[in-house]
């Protein structure tokens, strides 16, 4: 043992608190590369291998040689807290800079400039914040001693989890002086992603790869096509499972719905999605860790950010589009327990949802070029101004701008966006290649569902783990542990939940862009309304679809369900008359007539179409939607009392908002919108 190894080992033992601890294969090698060579390395090792020991020890050694502070870029909120504690054990002073502690920033930066901080943790999002880049980064990267990029696979758009914020890191690394060592860590990267990361972090990257075997994990696949049956299966199976776990869904809506379902079955469950704020997410994570929850029903938002070694089962309600994404999520189970289950349920809707994610992963060429052209003509544009020029929903525009920003095609200054001086060419070839690669991964996931070979070996091969071998534990190596049979009564109950879901239609309050004086939302706004089903769901939503597209008539079952929904809701003051949004066929009118009869209130043909508009569902953002419907209808008749305003579909809510405002302006009482199906889409 040389003196370097002796020093490093002493630090390792401080870290673990045991004087017997030895380095695992690869750890010392990585530390040497960073400290002795000031080199660049990527460590691909399973979670729990001890990646943090590498950078904590490297930091301690570099600091003792007079190097600057280590900057760790990590998406892990919880991990950050653990890191701060671990750092103290080796005598390092660690700080974090995030949106939750802005008040402390000044103090932290002062400490950095006095060279009193050894380790600074930041999230990748920070690097894309212009103010942070201009005011903070120069101080931060001043004399940086080591850059650590956690979850480095996110830097590659070949990966399953590409994040534009990470792409910025590629440029940061490219801009750093070559004598700054860089360490990337990940548990999920196949050869292609490693090669791409190597290209981005520098040619001389040292790759340290270990086995991705998970001894405690027991895998099984169950094909249960119908959603209601899968819900029933969860409700009957989860109470039998030991400990606590995670159910993964592909969409926010499904995560919310399945969470609600499990709670209604008496299971301590909570949903967890990217639409919740950090604080709420953290609280759920803590409740799961503390054992207060049996199960968290999550989207992929609960991925890298959660570090609980005692998870005993991970169930996929729907399967993700790649075996690597699957390995990462299922790998949350069984880290510090002897046995854990990884169960993949496969349903009918999986492919549709995966397809949607694949085809919407990148903005289209025509939309991108339109936005860039408009930006080039303007001397800076706000997001509202950009919306006026392209028919895309705001979230899509923002994600496009983020990609274009890290590509150097646009930049932000204050609240305005500018096109950069670089003529940017849409990377059609690269996007096609990446899409083809995602299609191949989607196929590989299908193969996982249908294979009769060892499941763990299959996943490890997909990750190019050279040591992949038969696990001898999974349902394919042994016999299935769980049956796919479901209780018929539970299935019925799940089905009725799927059918009874009510969705609130929140009125629009903000004028999206300059639309002239026609729209008066402050005096003439509509009331909150209700929608019967979500488009594409099983159950009643199937009747809505066939009524609209196959038979041209909404069945009486829907009139009955809608009547029941309105009675249960009972808005006050209670509506005394009903009108509807005229459509090109009389399908809405026909439905409204029967609904009025069923409710026992008068139906009035209040609205006449005076201009042909585009189908509202083809309008993608508020400005386009409001503009499309403004002036399309006129009020020809009304009653002074409260009214129900009926339409078949609701997406942006602008039709209801604009038409309802016109009715109010004409002298109607409060207007309650009601619709059969919500066609707006909630992503993951």
């Amino acid at each position, binding site marked *: 043992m040389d003196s370097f190894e002796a020093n490093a080992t002493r630090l390792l033992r401080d870290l673990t608190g045991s004087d017997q601890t030895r380095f695992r294969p690869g750890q010392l090698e990585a530390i040497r590369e960073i400290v002795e060579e000031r080199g660049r390395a990527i460590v691909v090792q399973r979670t729990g291998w001890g990646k943090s020991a590498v950078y904590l020890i490297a930091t301690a050694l570099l600091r003792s040689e007079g190097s600057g502070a280590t900057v760790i870029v990590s998406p892990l909120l919880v991990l950050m807290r653990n890191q701060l504690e671990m750092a103290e054990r080796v005598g390092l002073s660690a700080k974090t800079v995030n949106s939750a502690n802005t008040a402390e920033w000044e103090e932290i930066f002062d400490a950095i400039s006095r060279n009193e901080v050894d380790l600074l943790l930041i999230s990748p999002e920070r690097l894309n914040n212009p103010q942070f880049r201009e005011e903070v980064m120069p101080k931060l990267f001043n004399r940086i001693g080591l850059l650590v990029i956690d979850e480095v696979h996110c830097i590659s758009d070949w990966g399953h989890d590409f994040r534009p914020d990470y792409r910025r890191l590629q440029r*940061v690394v490219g801009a750093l002086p070559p004598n700054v060592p860089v360490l990337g860590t990940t548990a999920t990267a196949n050869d292609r992603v490693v090669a791409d990361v190597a290209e981005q972090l520098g040619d001389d990257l040292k790759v340290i790869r270990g086995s991705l075997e998970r001894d405690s994990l027991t895998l099984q696949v169950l094909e249960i096509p119908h959603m209601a049956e899968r819900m029933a299966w969860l409700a009957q199976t989860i109470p039998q499972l030991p400990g606590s776990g995670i159910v993964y869904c592909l969409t926010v809506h499904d995560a919310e719905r399945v969470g609600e379902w499990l709670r209604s079955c008496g299971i301590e469950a909570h949903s967890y999605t990217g639409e919740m704020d950090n604080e709420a997410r953290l609280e759920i994570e803590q409740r799961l860790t503390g054992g207060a929850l049996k199960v968290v029903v999550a989207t992929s938002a609960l991925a890298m950010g959660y570090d609980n070694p005692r998870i005993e089962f991970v169930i996929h309600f729907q399967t993700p589009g790649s075996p690597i994404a699957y390995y990462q999520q299922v790998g949350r189970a069984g880290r510090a327990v002897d046995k854990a289950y990884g169960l993949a349920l496969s349903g009918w809707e999986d492919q549709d949802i995966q397809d949607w994610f694949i085809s919407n992963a990148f903005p289209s060429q025509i939309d991108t070029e339109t936005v860039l052209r408009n930006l080039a003509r*303007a001397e800076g544009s706000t997001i509202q101004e950009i919306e006026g020029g392209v028919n895309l929903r705001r979230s899509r525009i923002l994600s496009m701008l983020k990609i274009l920003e890290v590509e150097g095609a646009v930049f932000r200054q204050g609240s305005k966006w500018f096109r950069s001086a*670089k003529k940017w060419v849409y990377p059609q070839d690269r996007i096609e290649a990446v899409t083809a690669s995602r299609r191949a991964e989607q196929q590989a996931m299908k193969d996982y569902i249908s294979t009769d070979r060892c499941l763990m070996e299959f996943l490890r091969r997909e990750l190019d783990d050279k040591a992949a071998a038969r696990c001898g534990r999974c349902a394919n190596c042994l016999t299935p542990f769980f049956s796919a049979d479901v209780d018929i009564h539970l299935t019925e109950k799940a089905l009725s939940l799927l059918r009874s879901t009510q969705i609130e239609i929140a009125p629009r309050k903000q004028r999206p862009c300059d639309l002239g004086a026609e729209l008066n939302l402050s005096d003439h706004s509509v009331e909150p309304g209700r929608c019967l089903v979500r488009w594409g769901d099983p159950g009643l939503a199937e009747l809505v679809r066939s009524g609209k597209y196959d038979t041209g008539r909404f069945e009486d079952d829907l009139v009955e369900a809608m009547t029941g929904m309105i009675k249960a809701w009972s808005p006050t003051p209670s509506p005394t008359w009903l009108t509807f949004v005229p459509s090109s066929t009389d399908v809405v009118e026909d439905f409204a007539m029967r609904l009025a009869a069923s409710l026992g209130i008068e139906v009035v043909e209040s609205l006449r179409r005076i201009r042909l508009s585009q189908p509202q569902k083809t309008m993608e953002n508020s400005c386009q939607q409001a503009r499309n419907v403004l002036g399309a209808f006129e009020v020809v008749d009304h009653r002074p009392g409260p009214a129900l305003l009926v339409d078949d579909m609701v997406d942006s809510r602008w039709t209801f908002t604009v038409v309802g405002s016109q009715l109010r302006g004409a002298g109607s009482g409060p207007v309650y919108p009601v619709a059969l199906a919500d066609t707006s889409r909630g992503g993951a």
Partner: protein
Amino acid sequence: MTLSNDAKAIITLTTRLGSRSRPSLTPRMWNNLATVLRDSGHEPSDFFDRGFDLRDVPGVSADLADRVDRLLDDGAAATLEADDLSGKGIWMMTLVDERYPSTLVSRLGPDAPPVLFGVGTRSLLQANGVGIVGSRNVDEAGAKVAASVAEEVVRVGRSVVSGAARGVDQLAMNAAYSRGGTVIGVLADSLIGRIQKSGMLEALDSEATCLVSQQAPSSGFTPASAMSRNKLIYALSDVTVVIASDSGSGGTWSGATEAIKSENGRVVVWRGSGEGPGNSELQNLGAPPLRDASKLGSFLEQDTPEAEQLSLIDGG
């Protein structure tokens, strides 16, 4: 854009990117240091090597070595701002870049800017252009002359080089651009502000325009930056035509007299309708007169391919 390690070293040592208060080296200090380094077998990127100490290089003062150490200490801040600039479409070209215009080295010598910042088509800088300079407040006759000289520059297949200021500069650049010619605008300040003006991106996209500056892109105007801008115009041009100059003062006058005196560019002065009060004095100081725009060609050097010029210089 990925910067080479040599480029990163030069940016770190000679610019104020990252912090406006960095004690960056002047062009002359850098060029002298670069010569010393080259003589002892080193390259700029050696600054990043562990174990390299400038104090070991003969002919380097301790003061200079200390200053370089301080600059290297916050090198990351400088190179990160360089990356931010490239995100805005601004390129940086250092003296070690093979596309760096050789005329700047041959004409400005130790004052050649170590880093050029720019946007647009940088290959325009490699061929000698024709400078057109003059007062901001030019009369109608002067405006006409500026335009007709610019059109002649386009006709003979050269780029118009100008200061991109109001008056003669813009008239000449617009005339050349609208005739389908190529234009090099040399800025004294605020490169970033320029690319946020409408119309500029279209001009850049057409690949007929290049804006270049030796000042950091967000820096403001100073008399010194105006002087170095003038030097760049003359040095990037085969000849520079003074359309209208004041006498004894003003940017045009000082730029032209400096060029005549230090021989960092050839000056031709317009004589005729539209000329300024200083034009005849510039002729007296040795600038040959141009009396007919169509005779511009007689002042231009024969089209010698750039590569041959280079080899002549290097071979000599």
